[in-house]
């Protein structure tokens, strides 16, 4: 209860949380909120400007942009959570073990693989992986997750390297605490803050990466609406129908901002040294 109160006192964090909460509500109640079927084409009203009938206007196939943005929230939130979830599931344990036990495996296998993966531009890497796995939303998530994993390995390992030499870790070992317990009860909680920050940032990039892969035909298949694919499909119409890019773009901006504010707010309550 105390933690909740502390969080509520952090203004920006609350705004971030509200944005994310709003996103979740929109995603869950998309059917109720959207006035039209997001995929229904209406050739009478192609590229109509925002009006009371079509709040955000319509795209080049006459689909209601507001409804598509609302349904796109589902894809985006799934993309953010699943891709980052996969990345953490792979990256955090490897980073923990690698940093704690050091030696040949850490130095020559794990870290060199991470270097090799990070030498590729992220999108190229995700593209290559999803090309191997095949098109589709699930495979795109796996590809993005694998692509993000090196960042989590690196950040977790870096934390472990500093923490394992802290006196309180030595002290825990000096009372006979076993390695697994030291890793998960003593080191991991102390390493969590930068991992949480990394996760929120990665969620933002995950949304963008999913959009990019979808645009290239490797992610969400049309006509399923996702903000990124809407943005990319509308970019050729920028001079004729700017609203077709503005609204999905704003949605991405808002959610990315929300994740970042939330991440900062969480850091302030997770870290007792920052607590007042």
């Amino acid at each position, binding site marked *: 209860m105390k933690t909740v109160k502390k969080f509520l006192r952090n203004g920006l964090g609350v705004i971030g949380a509200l944005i994310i909460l709003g996103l979740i509500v929109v995603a869950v109640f998309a059917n109720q909120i959207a006035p039209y079927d997001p995929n229904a084409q209406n050739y009478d009203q192609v590229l109509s400007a925002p009006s009371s009938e079509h709040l955000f206007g319509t795209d080049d196939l006459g689909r209601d942009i507001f409804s598509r943005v609302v349904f796109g929230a589902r894809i985006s939130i799934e993309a953010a959570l699943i891709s980052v979830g996969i990345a953490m599931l792979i990256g955090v344990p490897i980073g923990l073990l690698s940093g704690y036990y050091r*030696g040949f495996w850490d130095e020559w296998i794990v870290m060199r693989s991470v270097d090799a993966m990070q030498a590729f531009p992220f999108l190229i890497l995700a593209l290559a992986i999803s090309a191997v796995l095949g098109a589709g939303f699930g495979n795109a998530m796996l590809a993005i997750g694998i692509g993000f994993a090196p960042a989590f390995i690196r950040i977790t390992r870096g934390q472990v390297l500093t923490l394992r030499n*802290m006196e309180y870790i030595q*002290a825990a070992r*000096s*009372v*006979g*605490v076993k390695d697994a317990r030291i890793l998960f009860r*003593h080191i991991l909680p102390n390493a969590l803050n930068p991992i949480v920050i990394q996760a929120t940032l990665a969620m933002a990039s995950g949304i963008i990466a999913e959009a990019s892969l979808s645009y290239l035909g490797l992610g969400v298949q049309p006509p399923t609406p996702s903000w990124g694919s809407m943005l990319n499909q509308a970019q050729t119409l920028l001079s004729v129908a700017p609203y077709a890019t503005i609204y999905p773009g704003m949605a991405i901006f808002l959610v990315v901002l929300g994740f970042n504010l939330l991440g900062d707010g969480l850091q302030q309550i997770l870290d*007792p*040294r920052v607590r007042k």
Partner: protein
Amino acid sequence: MTTILEVEQLKTRFRTDNGVVSVVDGVDFSIHAGETLGIVGESGCGKSVTSLSIMRLLPPNGKIEGEIRFNGKNILDLTEKEMQSVRGNEIAMIFQEPMTSLNPLHTVGRQIEEAIILHMKLDKAEAKKRAISLLKAVGMPRAEEIYEEFPHQLSGGMRQRVMIAMAMGCNPKLIIADEPTTALDVTIQAQILDLMREVKEKTGTSIMLITHDLGVVAEMCDRVIVMYAGQVVEETDVDTLFENPKHPYTIGLMNSIPELDDEREYLDTIPGTVPLPHQMPKGCRFAPRCSQAMAICHEKPPELLQLNGHKCRCWLYAEEGEQQ
């Protein structure tokens, strides 16, 4: 008197990028039940590595040779799992820096309980009871409240008391205290030393006290080892050490303590610094800094001589040593 810890020809080396570095080089000593042994020396002489070797808590590039017999069995032969049941249970450690030796994310109570639950197999409620009684035993006011608090809410002296409570948790036979008072204010130092003495008297545990402060040694110890550059250079009981120090290094250390009625304008210092582990002099390791160095000192390393129970590693006493 039973001997609980015997260290024989302890050699600890580290593999580094500059080759193998020998930090502790053939150290022998023993600790009896209920005794406080002081280990004195300046930074980098191998005091802390000696204690970490006993706990087998060296980083992976460290290698230990020799024998460390605790209650008669060589702990270097134990498996890591067996060693974990020794740590905290039979040998406990108090660290130098109370500000960083407690986990900032765990409550004080949880940290004290950890070893108790692990080794004494108590349930949560019993462990809590014991943790609170330990907090009371180390002189903590409001023990029940402190139990729930986080380390950052405590002062340095209080944290060191918590560390002592943690170390006492399972009634260890030996407590290794690595500079337990160095980071504390002078008045708090005295309180912590009093507390450690009290703990020792009540529980009969032995203490291995690592320090560079001869004042602390005089207060606390029964016997003293003086270490220099990874070797023992002098070993004797505490009274003899202060009345009749033999090794020029020990004498140098004594002369660098200020006294109340001191009329000296400047304190005596020992010129130079401890030689680096991979650049040890050929002869006596102290010879380059020694005011009484002779030709032989630069040629041949001296042995640790036995002089009526007073051990000293110095060529000045070679004849005396031979007569005995």
